[in-house]
C-alpha cells in the first residue's frame, strides 16, 4: 500500500462480545450478519422448493411436517408463498446489496465505515425482526399466507374468509414486508450517503469499481421503490384490519359470503405492488452485474471492456426499471395502448442489457482467463443472463404474454434471470471475497464441482419449464394429476424434480466448503487474486477502521490489468504513478 495518506490514530473495535458481534456498528460485521441471515433464508427457501418438487412429481407421497403427511393444495400454496417471499426479500434483495455491499463498499471507496453506522445496525436488526415475523406466520392458527409473494388483492385483503392462512398469517406477512421496507429504506440512505460523501481522495465517480456503481444505483432504486411498497402494505393492512376499501370492490362474494366493502380497486394493489416490484427485480440483479464485471476483469487480467458504457448502461437500466411495471399486468384488462407503451419500454431495456453482455464478452475476448471457482460462476452468470433475458423479450410482448402469463414459462424466465443469475453472482462474490473476509481460501476443487453440478442442474430444472409453459401449464397448481391435458407432462415434472434434488445436494459442497474453510482453509495472502481495488490492498483481517489510519489516495481507475510496460500485470488503485514498477 502506498504511504501517501496521513497517519492518524484510529479507534479500536469495541471489546464486549455483544457490542462486537451482535449489536455491532462495524459495517464488516453487519455485512456478515446480513450474509448469514441470507444463508439461513436461502436454506429454508431451498428446502421448501425441494418439498414443492417432491409434491409436484409424486403428489401422493407423504411428507414429514404436514398434517398426516398429506400436502393439501393450501399447504402447497403456503410453501410457494414462503419460498417466494424468503427468496426475493431475504436472499436476493439482502445478500448482494446489504451483505456484500455493506462489507466491501466502504473499503472499496477508502472509507472507515458507512456514513451512518447506527442506522446501519438498525437496518439489519429490523430486517432480522421482519424475517422472524414472516417465519412466525407459519406457526399461527390457519398457518402462513397462501397469496403468493405478490399478495394480489382482493383475496389478500379480505381476511380469513379467503382461505386458511389469509387470516393472521397474511397480516403477519404484510407486517413483515412493511418492516422490511423500513429497513431497506434506511439501508439505501446509508449506501447513497456513503458513496456520495466518503470516497477517498482521487476516487472520482468514473474511477469507482463497477461493484460500487452497482450498489449505488441499486440503493437509488431501493430508495424510490420501497416507500411505495410500504404505502401499499399500510393500505392493505387497513383493508384487512380497519374495514377500509382501498383494494376490495363492492359486492364481492367470497366463499359464499357477500362482503360489506365498497368500491375499492384490486388493480390499485397491482399497480402499487409492481411499481415497486419491477425495480425490485433490478435491485436483485444490478449488484450482481457489478460483482460479475469485477470478477470477470480480475480473472481475465484485462480492464473491463467499455467501463463508461457499463456505468451508463447500469444507470439506464435503473432509470427504465421505473417505467415498465405494467408489463406484469398485460392480462389485467389494461388499455391495449398502455400495454403497447409498457411493451416498447420493456423491450428498450434489452439495449443496455445487450451492451452489458457485449462488454462482458469483450472483457473475456482474447484474455488469459484464470478459471477459478469465482470466475466460473461469473461466466455462468453471463450465460444465465442471456438465456433468462431472451425469454424476457418474448414475455414483454402483450400478444405472447396473453398466452404465457402465469404459466411455467414465466417461472423458468424469472428463475433463470433473477433467481439463479443473482445467486451465481453471490457464489462468485463468496468465492472471490472469502479470503479477505475470513483470512482463508476456499477449496477450489470443491468449488469447481459445486459450479458444474449447479450450472448443469439449474439448466435442467428451468429450461424444461419453458416447454411446460408453451404447453399451457399454469403455475401454482399443486398437482396436475387430475388435469387431463396436462397430465401427459408428468414425466417432465419428474425430470425437473430429480434435477432439483441433485442441484440441492450439490449445495452441500458449498456449505461444507464455506464452513470448513473459515477455520481450516489454506491461509490467504493479502491479495491472493492479484487484484487492483482497495479492499485487496489492506491487510487481512481488515482493521476495524479498514485502513489502520492510513487512508488511501486513488490515482487510477479500478481495472488496470496487464498495463503495457508495467512490471506486474496489475496496478493497484492507490499506487502513485511514479511508484509503478516498470518492466
Amino acid at each position, binding site marked *: 500500500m502506498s504511504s501517501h*495518506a*496521513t497517519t*492518524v*490514530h484510529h*479507534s479500536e473495535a*469495541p471489546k464486549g462480545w455483544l457490542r462486537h458481534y451482535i449489536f455491532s456498528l462495524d459495517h464488516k460485521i453487519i455485512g456478515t450478519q446480513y450474509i448469514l441471515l441470507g444463508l439461513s433464508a436461502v436454506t429454508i427457501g431451498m428446502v421448501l422448493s425441494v418439498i414443492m418438487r417432491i409434491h409436484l412429481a409424486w403428489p401422493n407421497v407423504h411428507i414429514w411436517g404436514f398434517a398426516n403427511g398429506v400436502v393439501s393444495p393450501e399447504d402447497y400454496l403456503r410453501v410457494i408463498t414462503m419460498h417466494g417471499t424468503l427468496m426475493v426479500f431475504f436472499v436476493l434483495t439482502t445478500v448482494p446489496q446489504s451483505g456484500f455491499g455493506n462489507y466491501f463498499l466502504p473499503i472499496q*471507496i*477508502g*472509507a*472507515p*465505515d458507512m*456514513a451512518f*453506522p447506527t442506522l446501519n445496525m438498525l437496518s439489519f436488526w429490523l430486517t432480522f425482526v421482519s424475517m422472524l415475523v414472516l417465519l412466525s406466520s407459519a406457526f399461527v392458527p390457519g398457518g402462513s399466507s397462501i397469496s403468493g409473494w405478490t399478495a394480489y388483492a382482493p383475496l389478500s385483503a379480505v381476511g380469513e374468509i379467503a382461505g386458511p392462512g389469509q387470516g393472521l398469517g397474511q397480516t403477519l406477512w404484510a407486517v413483515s414486508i412493511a418492516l422490511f421496507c423500513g429497513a431497506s*429504506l434506511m439501508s*439505501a*440512505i446509508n449506501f447513497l450517503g*456513503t458513496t456520495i*460523501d*466518503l*470516497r*477517498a*481522495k*482521487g*476516487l*472520482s*465517480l*468514473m*474511477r469507482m469499481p463497477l461493484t460500487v456503481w452497482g450498489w449505488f444505483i441499486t440503493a437509488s432504486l431501493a*430508495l*424510490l*421503490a420501497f*416507500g*411505495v411498497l*410500504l*404505502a*401499499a402494505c*399500510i393500505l392493505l393492512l*387497513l383493508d384487512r384490519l*380497519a374495514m*377500509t*376499501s*382501498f383494494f376490495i370492490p363492492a359486492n364481492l362474494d367470497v366463499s359464499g359470503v357477500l362482503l360489506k366493502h*365498497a*368500491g375499492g380497486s384490486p*388493480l*390499485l394493489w397491482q*399497480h402499487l405492488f409492481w*411499481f415497486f416490484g419491477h425495480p425490485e427485480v433490478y435491485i436483485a440483479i444490478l449488484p450482481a452485474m457489478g460483482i460479475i464485471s469485477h470478477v470477470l476483469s480480475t480473472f481475465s487480467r484485462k480492464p473491463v471492456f467499455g467501463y463508461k458504457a457499463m456505468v451508463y448502461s447500469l444507470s439506464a437500466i435503473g432509470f427504465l426499471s421505473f417505467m415498465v411495471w405494467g408489463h406484469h399486468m398485460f392480462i389485467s384488462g389494461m388499455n391495449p395502448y398502455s400495454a403497447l407503451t409498457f411493451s416498447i419500454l420493456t423491450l428498450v431495456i434489452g439495449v443496455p442489457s445487450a451492451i452489458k453482455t457485449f462488454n462482458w464478452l469483450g472483457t473475456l475476448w482474447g484474455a488469459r482467463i484464470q478459471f477459478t471457482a469465482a470466475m466460473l460462476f461469473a461466466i455462468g452468470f453471463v450465460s444465465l443472463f442471456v438465456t433468462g433475458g431472451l425469454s424476457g423479450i418474448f414475455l414483454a410482448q402483450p400478444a405472447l404474454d396473453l398466452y404465457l402469463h402465469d404459466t411455467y414459462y414465466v417461472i423458468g424466465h424469472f428463475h433463470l434471470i433473477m433467481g439463479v443469475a443473482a445467486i451465481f453472482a453471490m457464489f462468485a462474490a463468496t468465492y472471490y471475497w472469502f479470503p479477505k473476509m475470513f483470512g482463508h481460501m476456499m477449496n477450489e476443487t470443491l468449488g469447481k464441482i459445486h459450479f458444474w453440478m449447479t450450472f448443469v442442474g439449474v439448466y435442467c430444472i428451468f429450461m424444461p419449464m419453458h416447454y411446460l409453459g408453451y404447453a399451457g401449464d399454469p403455475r401454482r397448481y399443486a398437482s396436475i394429476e387430475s388435469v387431463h391435458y396436462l397430465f401427459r407432462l408428468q414425466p417432465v415434472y419428474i425430470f425437473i424434480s430429480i434435477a432439483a434434488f441433485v442441484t440441492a445436494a450439490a449445495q452441500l459442497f458449498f456449505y461444507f466448503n464455506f464452513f470448513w474453510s473459515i477455520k481450516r482453509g489454506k491461509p490467504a495472502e493479502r491479495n491472493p487474486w492479484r487484484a487492483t481495488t482497495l479492499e485487496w490492498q489492506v491487510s487481512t483481517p481488515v482493521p476495524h*477502521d479498514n485502513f489502520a489510519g492510513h*487512508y*488511501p*489516495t486513488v490515482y*487510477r*481507475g479500478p481495472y488496470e490489468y496487464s498495463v*503495457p*510496460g*508495467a512490471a506486474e500485470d496489475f*496496478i493497484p488503485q492507490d499506487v502513485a*504513478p511514479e511508484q509503478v514498477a*516498470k518492466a
Partner: protein
Amino acid sequence: MPHTSTTEELEIIEAGGGGTPPSFAGGDDDGSPGGRFGLPQRVYVTGMAIGMGAILMFFMAFASAFIVRKGVGSDWQAFPMPRILWLNTLILLASSLTIVRARQFFARGDREGFRHWWSVTTILGLLFLAGQLIAWRQMVISGFYLATNASSSFFYVLTAAHGLHLLGGIVALLYVGRGKLRRLTFATATEVTAVYWHFMDGLWVFLFLLLLLGR
C-alpha cells in the same frame, strides 16, 4: 510511463470530489461530535436530502392511490373539510418562518435568540399536531370515520402519516434544543432539522391542497 492519468481524468477528480483523508481524523468513541471516525459533517446533510426523497416517494404513492381510487370507484363521497385545517396550515407555515429566524440568531452567535425562536418553532409544531387531532374530531362529528368512505380513509391515512413524520421533526427539535449532541456539530444539527422542518411544511401544503381540491 506508458499509462498515466490524462488531464481529462484529473479534471473529473477536481469536479467529482470525494472525501479527504484528514477529515476522518480524531475519531475517538468519546461522544464528541464526529463520532467513531470523525466522519465529515456533510454526510448528515446529504443523508437528509436522500431521506427526503424516500419520504416523498412514500407520500406520492398515497397521493397516486388517492387519485386512482377516486377515479375508479363509483362510491366516492366528498367529506366536509375540517375548518381548523386552515388555521393549522397557517401555524405550520409560521413555524417555518420562526425556524429561519432561529437559525439567523444562531448564525450571529446569539444563543439566547436562537433558543427562543427554536422553542417557538417547537411549540408551533406541537400546536399543529394538536390542531390535527381537533380536525380528526371534527371529521368524526360530521360522521366520517376511517372506514366510512375511501375519501375519509385517505384523509386519516394522509394526516396520520404526515403527523407521524412531523412528530419525528418535533423530537429532533427537542433533541437539538437540549443541546447535547453526539455525532453532529450544532450547526449541522440545526441545518438538518430546519431542512426537514421546511420539507414537512411544504409536504403538508401539498397534502392539504390534495385533500381540499381532490376530496
